[in-house]
């Protein structure tokens, strides 16, 4: 079970409160977690990754276990603590604007 923490605007779009928990088939990577997230909440498609290129939107970042994972490869395995569900995978709106 993967725990995902969404920013407030995306929680509102998905009509969820707090953390989202996902069953991810196969290896837990950014791609597989986001695929599972978008399959459960299709209203989030295009808000985290570009619809066509599937690249992370520029002002969206991924954190977990006190690490910035934004620039990791999409198919790189996520930290064990995220896979085990002891730590959440954070999707963050970058701080901009002061």
């Amino acid at each position, binding site marked *: 079970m993967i725990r995902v923490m969404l920013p407030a*605007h995306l929680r509102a779009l998905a009509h969820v409160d707090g953390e989202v928990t996902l069953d991810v088939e196969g290896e837990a990577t950014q791609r597989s977690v986001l695929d599972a997230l978008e399959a459960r909440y299709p*209203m989030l*498609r*295009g808000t985290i990754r570009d*619809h*066509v290129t599937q690249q992370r*939107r520029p002002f969206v970042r991924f954190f977990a276990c006190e690490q910035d994972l934004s620039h990791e490869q999409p198919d790189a395995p996520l930290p064990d603590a995220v896979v085990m569900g002891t730590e959440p995978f954070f999707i963050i709106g*970058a701080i*901009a604007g002061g």
Partner: protein
Amino acid sequence: MSGVRVLVGTRKGAFVLTSDGKRELWDVSGPHFAGWEIYHLKGSPADPNRLYASQTSGWFGQIIQRSDDGGKTWHQPGTPPGEPTTTPDGMPKGESNKFVYDASPETGKPLTKHQWYDGKLRPWEFKRVWHLEPSLTDPDTVYAGVEDAALFRSTDGGQTWRELSGLRGHGTGPDWQPGAGGMCLHTILLDPSDPGRIYIAISAAGAFRSDDAGQTWQPINRGLKSQYIPDPNAQVGHCVHRIAMHRSRPGVLFMQKHWDVMRSDDAGESWQEVSGNLPTDFGFSIDVHAHEPDTVYVVPIKSDSEHYPPEGKLRVYRSRTGGNEWEALTKGLPQRNCYVNVLRDAMAVDSLDSCGVYFGTTGGQVYASADAGDTWAPIVRDLPAVLSVEVQTLP
């Protein structure tokens, strides 16, 4: 008793203002989509309960919202809460915010680059929807004007979108360039007398017309003069801020250009300046009285570098002669120390017997006049900066 519903898009959400036909007491609903930029929302002329909204964010991109009950509840088309999240063939829904430029050789003619501010070419890149224009006859058909400039259409209530790529591909696209607000398609006018005729306007490319329901397009900028481009009389490159028409006379167009207020009497084939005695002919918004095709409203703004009313006096100017002769409308509007702007999509009229006129400001005020502009009063004073105002006249 008839009434009005005023749809207000702001920098931090949408607001719905409703009143009866007197337009004195108002109910304010909102913010809807709090914290998001709402560039535009508009109701279907064919079904007043059907509303479309463009919700955008620099972080999370474009969202399309739809209401089927006059703004009480909203959902993203194709993904309403509680309904299956996949289509019958198992594909995830969630295409309502997917705006992909057509690059096929047959239609899009692989047009991929336009002018950038520095004169270099830059690839077309979708940023947001500036304007949503529902069909006059079908609630499920709606047009979207987007940045970088292109026109899209949905025929399934906003669930999916397809570019009308003949506009970008007709030949002048590589010469288009962004205005200060971006390269946006911000105006869409549908001719009520001719289903095939559509007018659009782009900053900074100009005005364009289609006579075959959006398949093919031609620039309609003859007569425009813009000193800020190398050839002031060029076919394209003009920063058209807004065009407006009256339903009864769709071949007559009024335009607020970057500088100059213009008029065309031949469906855009040629334009004449009608700025007349305006204190400044810079501005963004322009609209036409609901029952008087020659009564036109503008809000003069000091200049392109000083986006506020001249002399700190917020004045709507009205011409009852189709331009050239303008009168200042000031009763109820601040006449000192006012330095707000009125953006291009932030003025609208209702169609009650005594025509109501509405506009919103970057200071968060929405002003209404129930007597065609003679007197004004604020409906609200302290909203976030207003990006757009539309009005529905309800039975």
